[in-house]
C-alpha cells in the first residue's frame, strides 16, 4: 500500500511561500512605507473633506449675495410653483431654497441654491440633471448659444448646499455662492 505522508503543519503555514525573504530589515522598511502611506491618506481625506464642506450660514446671506450678483437682476425670483414647473420636483423637502430664472423661453439662464439633507439634495440633483438633459434636447438642434451655456452648467454640492447655474455670468454666481459658505 502506498504510504501517504500528512504534514503536521497547519494548512495556512503549508501554503505560505517558504522564501528566504529579505528578512526583518525589509519588513521594517515596508512597515515605514505603509505608515507614511497612511499618514498621506489621512491628510488627503482631510483635504477632500475640507474642500467639500461648507460653513453653515443663514440662508438670507446667500439669497442677498446671489440677488446682488451681476446679471441676476434681469431674472425673476421664482415661487414654489415656478420652481416645480421648471425642475419637475418640489422644493419642499429642502430646508431653504432660491431660484431665479428668465420669462423668455429662449433665455436658458437660471440659478438655484438649495439647502437640505443628503436625500433631499440627491433628489434635487437628479431633477436638475433631468432638467439639463431636457433643455439640451430642446436647444441642441438650433440654439448654438443656449446649447453652449447649458453644456457649461455649474452644479456643485458643498456640505448641505446644492448650487446650480446656467448663464453668461454663471461663474460669477458661483463665486458669490462660494464666498458665502467658505
Amino acid at each position: 500500500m502506498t504510504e501517504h505522508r500528512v504534514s503536521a503543519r497547519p494548512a495556512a503555514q503549508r501554503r505560505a511561500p517558504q522564501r528566504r525573504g529579505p528578512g526583518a530589515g525589509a519588513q521594517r522598511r515596508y512597515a515605514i512605507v505603509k505608515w507614511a502611506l497612511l499618514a498621506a491618506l489621512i491628510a488627503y481625506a482631510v483635504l477632500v473633506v475640507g474642500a467639500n464642506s461648507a460653513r453653515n450660514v443663514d440662508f438670507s446671506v446667500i439669497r442677498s449675495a446671489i440677488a446682488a450678483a451681476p446679471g441676476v437682476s434681469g431674472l425673476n425670483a421664482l415661487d414654489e410653483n415656478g420652481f416645480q414647473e421648471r425642475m419637475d420636483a418640489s422644493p419642499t423637502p429642502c430646508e431653504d431654497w432660491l431660484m431665479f430664472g428668465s420669462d423668455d423661453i429662449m433665455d436658458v439662464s437660471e440659478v438655484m441654491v438649495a439647502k437640505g439633507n443628503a436625500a433631499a439634495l440627491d433628489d434635487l440633483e437628479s431633477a436638475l440633471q433631468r432638467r439639463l438633459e431636457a433643455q439640451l434636447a430642446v436647444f441642441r438642434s438650433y440654439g448654438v448659444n443656449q446649447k453652449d451655456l447649458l453644456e457649461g452648467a455649474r452644479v456643485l454640492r458643498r456640505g448641505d448646499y446644492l448650487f446650480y447655474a446656467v448663464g453668461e455670468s454663471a461663474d460669477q454666481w458661483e463665486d458669490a455662492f462660494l464666498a458665502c459658505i467658505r
Partner: protein
Amino acid sequence: MVFSSLHFLYIYLPVVMLAHLLAPRRLRNGVLLAASLWFYAWGEPVYVGLMLFSVAWNYVTGLQLGAAARPSRRKAILAGAVAVNLAVLGFFKYYGFLVQTLNGALGLRLPDYNLPLPIGISFYTFQALSYIIDVYRGTTKPQPSLVDFATYITMFPQLVAGPIVKYADIEAQLQKRRATLAQVGQGLERVILGLAKKVLLANNLGLLADAMRAAPRLSVLSAWLGAAAYALQIYFDFSGYSDMAIGMGRMLGFGFAENFDYPYRARSVTEFWRRWHISLSGWFRDYVYIPLGGNRVGIGRHILNLLAVWLLTGLWHGASWNFVLWGLYYAVLLIAEKYVTGRALSKLPDGVARALTLVLVTVGWVIFSNTDFSAMGRYLGFLVGIGAGGFADGAFLYALRSNALLIAFAALCCGPGLRQWQLRLTGRLPAVALVLFAALLAACTAYLVHGSYNPFLYFRF
C-alpha cells in the same frame, strides 16, 4: 468619461489603442497605466489620489506578505491591509449613509460631509482585496513591478463598472500578451455589440421605465410594463458595459471572464445569480461565503452565512437601505429555494420556472431602483393592484403600442439565439457581418449625436 460617449469612442479609444499597439512590448503596461489614469482623471481628478493610494498600499502589502514567513505575522499583515481597504471604502462610500442613519435613529447631529462617491471604488477595492488575499493564501505570487500592479488595479476597461478581474486571471497577460489583428477585430465587434445594447436598447427602455415611474398612479399592467422595462434596461445597460469592457480587454490582449450568461433565462433565483454579474458573485463566494463555511455547515449556520453574504452584496451596490432590503430579499429567496421550494421548482416545466423567476427578479428591481421607501411601497402596491388605477388603462395600451417592437427585440436579445446567429454570420460571411457592425456603429453614433438621455446605472457602484 463614459464608454458610450462620442469623445471616448472617437478620440480616447483610438488614440489609446494605437499607442498601446505601437509601444514596445516592455512599455505597454506603462502606456496602459497612463491611459487609465487619464481616463479616470477625466471624470474624477480629485479621486485619482485615492486610487493611487490603493495601488501603493496593496502593492507594498503584497511585497510585505511575500517577505513574511511566520503565519501569525502574515495574518496580522493581511488583517491590517484588509481593514485599511475597507476603512477607505467605508469612509468614502458609506460614511454619509451611516451618519444619516445614526442621526435619524439617535437624534445626533454628526456632520455629513456629502462627499461625492469616487467612481469605481467598489470595483478597484475588491480587485485589490482579491490580490492581497490570494497572496496571503499563497495561490498568487506578489507582483514585484509597481507599474504592472498599478496597471492591474487601474485598467480602464473594467475600472468603473467591472467585471471584477482577479489578479490571478490576468497575471500572465500582464507580463506577456499578444493582441493580434484577429483579436482586435473580435474585441471591436464585442465593443460595438455592447455599445448597441447600451445606446439602442437600454437608453430607450430607460425612457419607458422612467415615464412609468414618474406617473402618480398606474394600472397594474402599466406598473408591470414599467418594471419589466427597468429590468431590461439594467440588463442591457450593465451587460452592454461589460461587453465593451471585455471587448476592449481583448483588443489590448487580455482575456476577461464573462460577466453575464443570459440571466433572464434562469430557471431559479439561484441560477439567476450564477448568470448575473458573475464576477461579483464569484468574489463573494471565494472571499466571504466559502471562508465562512459555505454550505458545509449546519442549516442554521448556512442560513446565517447566506444572510451575511447577501446583506454585504446589497450594501456593495449602494449606501442606502433599499439596497440592504434588496440583498435580504435575495437571501430569503435563496434560502427558500435551498430548503423549501427547490425540489418543487425543479419539477416545473422550463417556461413556468423561468416566468416565475422573472417575476421575482423584476420585483427585486423595483426594490433596487427606489431609494425612497414610500415610492417603493406605492409601486409594489401598483403591481398587485393596491392603489392602482385599474387593471389596464389607456396609458398601458399606448405605452405598449409605442414600444412593442423595442420590447420584443429586447426580449429576443435576452436569449442566446441572436448572438449565435451573429457568430455564424461572422464565420461564414465576414463581409456581410462587417457591413452589419458598421451600420450598428453608425446607428449608435447617430443616437449619441442626437439623444441626450444617456445615463449609466452601474456607474456609481
